[in-house]
């Protein structure tokens, strides 16, 4: 039974309905009389409340339509609200891993993101944040005017930034960083009494310290900041008193780093070597053998086995926020809350909660966040884990991203077999981008026959997909992942050229005429395209004429090339007034003239292009395909901040 069935209601985002259903059942399933049924009811109630944030009733229909339509080249996003939402609900109840980590390390965001955070602060309906004057005032001042609230909320945000800067200043200044009095003074700021400000700072300052205690931060190391200072900060923010809350956001080693630094080795766990124990533990000394329980990383146990085990409660038991602060994940604004540098903690936690109860969309978003956005490699594993669970729940997006990630991972878990595995899965689910992703992956990292590639890409070929033609042409040309085959390659180039308009022809022709690829030498491959520019009548577009000249040069007819190039210059000057500024025009003319001089010297104009460049093209193709998926999921604006660079 899923949580909605337990509550005897239809999935809804109306929390009042959920509460009403819970209340009604609670009177029958009383905690005193039937603790077991009560536990199921209570857990279902909490699952339902957290899922409610992802239920977007209005968009379920339009989403289904969108899924079927999904066109290949249209990266512009229209509506994906609540994608995979159905799976999220039906799977959610049976599955929930015990632990996930979210890395809240941040990258440099842009101003837009900052504004959005301010907006979220302003949204919160707090009353009575007082004007600056009252910071220092110990009397209680309560205001409830809404327009005041706006300024007030901004000042929380400003205060947080101010405070972080102050901490940074202290840490950067040699003479100040170890002066306990200065730190004490800093913490005496009455604005820190505000619970909201302090809560945000609790995590951000921890983050800051986990960074500066990293050996990479040389600026702070002479003299190094003293442990007792870090300890003081830890005491102020109660890091140690509630370490478990830190483990929700930081990796064990990060926490170990800071805590060991502040409290000495006493704060670190003890290491035991099992082999040693074995020697002393044989015979009757079984006492040495005790303790000895170990848990596989819990995430993996949850991922790879026991789907039948009774449902465990999500690791995070947090009461839901009101709709106002976080309504549904499908909303891009909310993605922003999670994905931006100033990501809102509560939104992230909500998302984690949903993820732990198996919501696919939440898993996808967290996976993306951890994998690409914020921080390079230390949240990497969490990202993989999230996506793996999403993929196992049938998320094609997750499968594609995983396929991508296993190929390009900067860390050690680069694994082509896994990449192929996930991409094949996406393929078997019929995702439109899967064939190209898989073909690129295999060609780049493995081998397959030309027939196999064509087979794999048969649909794309049929649909005259330019990216597929490009892939085939390049692979045949350089023998990437297959045998080198020039005629075959040229055939695909021609397909590529004719799959589009004259512009497309121009690009292919220009490439063939000017690339310094030895395989193309003497092939006269470009010559085929000359007619496109001459028939039915010679083109006057300077760029096409430029290409034509290059084609003649490639075929060895430099005289013709020279004359054609002069023509090109004339056409360029004529067409110029319309769309080129003077400076750009001059540059273009210089460029054209440089070629004419080359032809005069009986030399070709050549551009460097080798197998490496071709491979990069494949990589960029994969990148674009993956990015397309991510944009669909989180919106263009949010994808922008993601550090997706494959290099």
């Amino acid at each position: 039974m899923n949580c909605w069935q337990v509550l005897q209601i239809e999935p809804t985002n109306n929390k009042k309905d959920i509460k009403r259903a819970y209340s009604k059942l609670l009177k029958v399933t009383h905690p005193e009389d039937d603790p077991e049924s009560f536990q199921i009811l209570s857990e279902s109630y909490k699952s339902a409340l957290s899922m409610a944030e992802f239920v977007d009733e209005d968009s379920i229909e339009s989403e289904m339509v969108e899924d079927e339509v999904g066109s290949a080249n249209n990266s512009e996003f229209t509506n994906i609200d609540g994608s995979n939402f159905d799976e999220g609900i039906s799977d959610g109840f049976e599955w929930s891993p015990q632990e996930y980590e979210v890395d809240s390390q941040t990258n440099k965001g842009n101003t837009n993101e900052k504004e959005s955070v301010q907006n979220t602060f302003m949204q919160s309906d707090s009353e009575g944040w007082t004007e600056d004057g009252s910071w220092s005032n110990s009397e209680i001042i309560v205001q409830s005017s809404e327009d005041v609230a706006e300024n007030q909320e901004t000042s929380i945000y400003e205060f947080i930034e101010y405070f972080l800067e102050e901490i940074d200043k202290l840490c950067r200044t040699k003479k100040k960083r170890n002066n306990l009095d200065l730190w004490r003074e800093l913490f005496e700021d009455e604005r820190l009494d505000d619970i909201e400000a302090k809560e945000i700072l609790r995590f951000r300052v921890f983050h800051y310290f986990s960074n500066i205690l990293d050996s990479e931060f040389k600026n702070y190391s002479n003299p190094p900041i003293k442990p007792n200072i870090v300890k003081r900060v830890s005491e102020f923010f109660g890091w140690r008193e509630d370490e478990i809350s830190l483990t929700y956001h930081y990796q064990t080693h990060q926490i170990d780093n800071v805590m060991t630094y502040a409290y000495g080795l006493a704060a670190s766990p003890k290491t035991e070597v099992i082999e040693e124990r074995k020697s002393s533990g044989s015979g009757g000394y079984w006492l040495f053998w005790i303790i000895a329980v170990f848990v596989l990383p819990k995430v993996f146990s949850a991922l790879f086995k026991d789907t039948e085990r009774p449902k465990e409660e999500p690791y995070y038991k947090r009461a839901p926020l009101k709709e106002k602060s976080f309504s549904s994940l499908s909303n891009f604004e909310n993605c922003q809350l999670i994905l931006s540098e100033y990501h809102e903690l509560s939104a992230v936690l909500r998302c984690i909660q949903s993820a732990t109860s198996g919501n696919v969309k939440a898993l996808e978003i967290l996976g993306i966040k951890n994998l690409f956005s914020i921080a390079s490699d230390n949240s990497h594993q969490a990202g993989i884990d999230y996506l793996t669970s999403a993929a196992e729940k049938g998320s094609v997006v997750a499968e594609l991203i995983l396929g991508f990630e296993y190929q390009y991972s900067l860390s050690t878990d680069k694994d082509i077999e896994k990449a192929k595995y996930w991409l094949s899965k996406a393929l078997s689910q019929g995702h439109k981008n899967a064939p190209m992703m898989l073909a690129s992956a295999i060609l780049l990292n493995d081998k397959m026959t030309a027939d196999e590639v064509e087979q794999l890409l048969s649909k794309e070929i049929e649909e005259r997909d330019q990216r597929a033609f490009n892939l085939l042409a390049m692979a045949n040309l350089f023998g990437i992942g297959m045998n080198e085959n020039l005629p075959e390659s040229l055939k695909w180039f021609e397909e590529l050229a004719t799959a589009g308009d004259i512009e497309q022809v121009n690009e292919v022709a220009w490439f063939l005429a000017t690339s310094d690829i030895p395989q193309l030498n003497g092939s006269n491959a470009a010559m085929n395209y000359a007619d496109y520019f001459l028939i039915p009548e010679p083109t006057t577009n300077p760029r096409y004429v430029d290409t034509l000249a290059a084609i003649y040069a490639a075929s060895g007819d430099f005289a013709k090339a020279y004359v054609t190039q002069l023509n090109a210059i004339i056409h360029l000057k004529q067409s110029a007034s319309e769309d080129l500024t003077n400076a750009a025009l001059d540059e273009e003319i210089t460029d054209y003239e440089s070629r004419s001089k080359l032809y005069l010297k009986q030399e070709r104009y050549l551009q460097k292009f080798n197998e490496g460049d071709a491979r990069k093209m494949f990589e960029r193709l994969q990148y674009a395909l993956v990015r397309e998926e991510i944009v669909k999921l989180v919106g263009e604006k949010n994808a922008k901040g993601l550090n997706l660079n494959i290099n």
Partner: protein
Amino acid sequence: MTHIGIDLGTTNSLIAYWDGEKPQLIPNALGDVITPSAVSIDEDGQILIGKTAQERMISHPESSVAGFKRKMGTKSRIKLGKKEFTAEELSSLVLRQLKQDAEAFLGAPVTEAVISVPAYFNDAQRRATKVAGELAGLKVERLINEPTAAAVAYGVHDREQESHFLVVDLGGGTFDVSVLELFEGVMEVHASAGDNFLGGDDFTNEIASSFLRKHNLKAKQLDKASINQLKKLAQKAKHALSSNDEYNLKITLKGQDYELLLTRDSLEKILSELTGRLKAPIERAIRDSNIRPGELDDVLLVGGATRMPLIRSLIGRIFRRLPACTIDPDQVVALGAAVQAALKSRHKALKDIVMTDICPYTLGVEIAQQVSANQHQSGYFLPVIDRNTTIPVSKVQTLCTIANNQKVIDCSVYQGESRLVKNNIKLGNIEVKVPKNKAGEESVDIRFTYDINGILEVSVKVVSTGEVKRTIIKSEECSLSEKEIEESLKKLEKLKIHPRDQAENRLSLAKAERLFEESLGDKRDYVASLIAQFEATLNSQDLAKISSHKAEFDEEISALEEDVFA
């Protein structure tokens, strides 16, 4: 049967009952609804409880105790005259007094009660409270968390609203914070946090020790009576500063006069460290409940110490709002406990209300984590029941062996919020034998069951053999065994409790004795003669005479008390 709720506090205790429509407090023999949690033993070996015992803290410091709630769940012995008691035993004496008061008031035997405990009380402390009830002849049908009780009292008060609220409960010795939600007849606790060793008494003690510091005095140089007197004055100063801007603390110690002018500002400075400690639990409760401070509909103040303006302004700054306290902060917990007693038996007026509470601590076991092929790090804490899980609850974790041919798995049970067990509190352990096998091949299911009273049962099942071992966790240093409980009962039965009908006279006498301690010279002699006269009248056993003399005696003593510092 009457539904009884008891607030067994560090400084004061109260008892209330459900009258069919609402909770009502029951007055004691002196007509007060508040009974100080103090116990004293007099020269004849008679036990005195409440106000009288409190007065005797100064006149007879060696044979009077208070504040023993802080020792609940430990085996420490508290000296009272020549006898020694555990905190459970002393608490049971207070409970027995309350029980008698209720029986006298209701005219019916009282055998069951709901007793409140600080939300942040741990397992051992909860058990100790149950034992105290049993020792007093009360079946403890339910332990209710104090902030929850307070919220229940408020919730029933105006039950129409759907709201979130935060309860800040600063009692005499403990501090609790809970975040609750009330909707559709459901009272749901979202999160609790607290500090078991922070309360109004600490504030009083801090004022007293700051007084000593100012005058370069050491507590060690003073006798117990002087210290108790100074504490009493410090408390008086604390109370006075709630309504006045300044207070002059004057005392004569070892024949010398000392004084210190306290203002609200200087008080704030003196107490800044303690008030600072209030913040962390509040922050944690808010963090755990995941409710924005702005979403709270009310912040409720409970416990006498929240009367301090200092505390109110701190709460105001933290939440940017004025806290509410429409019910007397001293009484609200007892009232809520009585409501809970009625709720528990589904009293018809409360049929539609269900309350759910949570477990305030994370409970788990020690585990080792693999760091490389043959290396394990032990000392990690694996949560089994996360803090703020709705109770009752039962959870399982499966653990496996880490060494080949491992014979025993030791499940050490801990409570706390640190990733490392050494920073958490060990509750006990269970060892189970497992068949020889390869590392990782043998496993156990560890099940934690946390019942509605907040008491934990742990069972360990060896997966391969199906063998089950279960235990109610008992840590070595706390919790009385069955036999010990029986012995305690016998010991307590032998005690002579001062008869209830003479409570008022006894109090008058105790007050006078305290005044005797506090006075010097002629005044002291005069008080002594008054006491002697009154004692003579008491011995005459002539009720009419006693009654008229008492009125006279009280009047005279309080007149003298007024100018004690003159």
